[in-house]
């Protein structure tokens, strides 16, 4: 027993001594470190995301036309086949189904859900059998379109490094969402107002799935403002669809996290 204690304590002592000996203040000469110069690495894309100025475009086109006129050996003008403009036609089938649904709806059936409230007594109208569905709904909103598998060729993937979005790509996306997000002004500015939403995107930038990461906070008592903020962020995403994502590197940004932070705006 005592032998073991002696062995253990001597072993510990050795370790402590080794640690103490190697501490930096015991070194005779402090190493003179040069001052640290911070360097920010910025990813520059091949093409800028700034939209081509329409005025400049017109001028250039005019100049080109003039040049074409001067040229004697002008190639025969290739008339592009005009594609019919994509007009969002209402899906007839959907409308038919909708109409059928409307016909089927029995007003009395709805009334049954609405319970009689006494004078100025308020009562939430909800179906107790449908609670689970309500909880699930608020957790994640799955886009209307079904998820499809998008094949990204290996070559395309190889051109992209394992990095985040470039500054111009990020700015384009931010600028788009800034315009769509109506910040609820009634929120307390001294609370934690960060909503993190994880998105699954299609290559065209439309949203397949959106998920609030701090979902548990939504239903906590006294956190009503968080729910309001989260809903406003989801509305912004819906409104902005399809998102302005880079044209290449789908694998890189197919999963995207947006951190909505209202503090800066609300504090003024």
């Amino acid at each position, binding site marked *: 027993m005592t032998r073991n204690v002696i062995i253990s304590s001597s072993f510990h002592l050795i370790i402590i001594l080794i640690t103490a000996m190697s501490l930096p203040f015991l070194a005779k000469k402090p190493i003179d470190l040069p001052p640290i110069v911070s360097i920010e690495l910025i990813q520059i894309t091949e093409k800028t995301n700034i939209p081509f100025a329409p005025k400049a475009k017109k001028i250039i086109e005019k100049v080109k036309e003039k040049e074409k006129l001067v040229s004697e050996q002008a190639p025969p003008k290739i008339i592009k086949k005009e594609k019919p403009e994509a007009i969002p036609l209402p899906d007839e089938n959907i409308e038919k189904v909708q109409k059928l649904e409307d016909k089927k709806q029995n007003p009395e059936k709805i009334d049954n859900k609405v319970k*009689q409230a006494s004078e100025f007594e308020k009562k939430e109208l909800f179906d107790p059998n449908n609670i689970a569905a309500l909880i699930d709904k608020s957790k994640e909103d799955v886009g209307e379109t079904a998820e499809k598998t998008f094949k990204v060729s290996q070559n395309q993937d190889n051109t992209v490094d394992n990095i985040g979005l470039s500054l111009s790509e990020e700015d384009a996306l931010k600028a788009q969402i800034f315009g769509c997000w109506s910040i609820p002004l009634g929120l307390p500015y001294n609370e934690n107002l960060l909503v993190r939403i994880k998105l699954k995107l299609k290559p065209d930038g439309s949203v397949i799935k959106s998920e609030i990461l701090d979902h548990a906070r939504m239903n906590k008592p006294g956190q009503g403002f968080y729910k309001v903020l989260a809903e406003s962020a989801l509305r912004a995403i819906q409104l902005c669809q399809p998102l302005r994502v880079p044209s290449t590197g789908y694998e890189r940004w197919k999963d995207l996290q*947006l951190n909505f932070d209202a503090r800066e705006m609300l504090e003024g």
Partner: protein
Amino acid sequence: MFLRYLIIFVFLLPINSFALIEVDITRGNLNPLPIAVSPLFSDKETKSNLKKTNEKEDIGSEISFVIENNLKKSGLFNPLNKDSFLQKPDIAHLKPRFEDWALIKAQALITGKVTLIDDKLRVEFRLWDVLAAKEMMALAFTTVPSNWRRVGHIITDKIYERLTGEKGYFDTRIIYVSEEGPKTKRIKKLAIMDQDGFNTKYLTLGNELVLTPRFNPTNQMVTYLSYFRNLPRVYLLDIETGIQEVVGDFPGMTFAPRFSPDGKKIIMSFAKDGNSDIYTMDLENRIVERITNHPSIDTSPSYSPDGKYICFNSDRSGYQQIYIMKSDGSNVKRISFGKGLYGTPVWSPRGDLIAFTKLHKGKFYIGVMRTNGKGERLLTENFYQEAPSWSPNGRVLIFYRETKTDEKGEGFSAKLWSIDLTGYNERLVDTETDASDPSWSSLLSN
């Protein structure tokens, strides 16, 4: 052994993984939220029955106008023009076609239905998220038909709370001093109205001068100052019953009685032995307690919502500035340090801000600052304006503004104005007569 190597090998395999890209969205727009308020549907039978009992035939439509008007005045919502609606109210209430509402750029939709059951008005409404295509809220109210405007206000409060995250302020009333006649001979009466300017009632006859009415934060009692035989007298008035009682006669100049947050005390300033200080009076035992004791002029006291602190103005530094102290009068601390004179500080019901009137270079400003005196923001500037009073949710201020009298001695007027904390949403509050000294009640439905 083989299994161990295999596991190590699998971990060492180069995996082409991508870190999750995070984008911080720190800005958004402060544009009002586009909202569609569909007229509340009522069938023919209800309409004909309502016509017999009420002046209004289509109460459903009228309620929707009340809601729309409230939301628009808040400055946070942009109710869309009803002419652009594609879906009829009856079908919209059962199941909205969200595509139709999204097409007119609505982000939220309100639908509803009005029925008359046993001479009682039953109003149900639903709030829909158009973009997420789901119901956000559904409620029903039953009341007497003549109460339809109030139902509109209560519905607005519910919608406002659901969409902004803070309580509404629409089912409230405003008490003010109604003014009539020439400036030199004004008749001043106490008047009360709904926050949207409807249902005005006069509470006094105008024989005596009335000043500074203030609501009790917990119920529908009002305290005000009136001059009886040239002596200032503090009154208590129960608006529901109309019963009025004298709290006490006070010597010299008495100013602005105001309730404590629990409604059990009145705090005011009055001059005793030529020195104006702050006093409280317990309404149960009528015991007067002195809070400040300083040779300077201390006036306009206002409690913090938790009742622990009092803000007031004092000229103890040489100029009129805002101070805060503990409710027992200790720890007096100056919080305003800007240029000009500061007056009428009022603590926000939310507790985070203090509203004030400021006089600087001949102009009057209504502004807010944090309770530590930092973050001063001037919301509005004018020739003469004062007496801000907070909405119960601490988002909007109501105050009064006077216009200049011209050379002929005409053109003077006093009107109520409201402004929200952004400083952009400034609105004239409709009153039947000229008006001053407004005070906002707490929510009636609480």
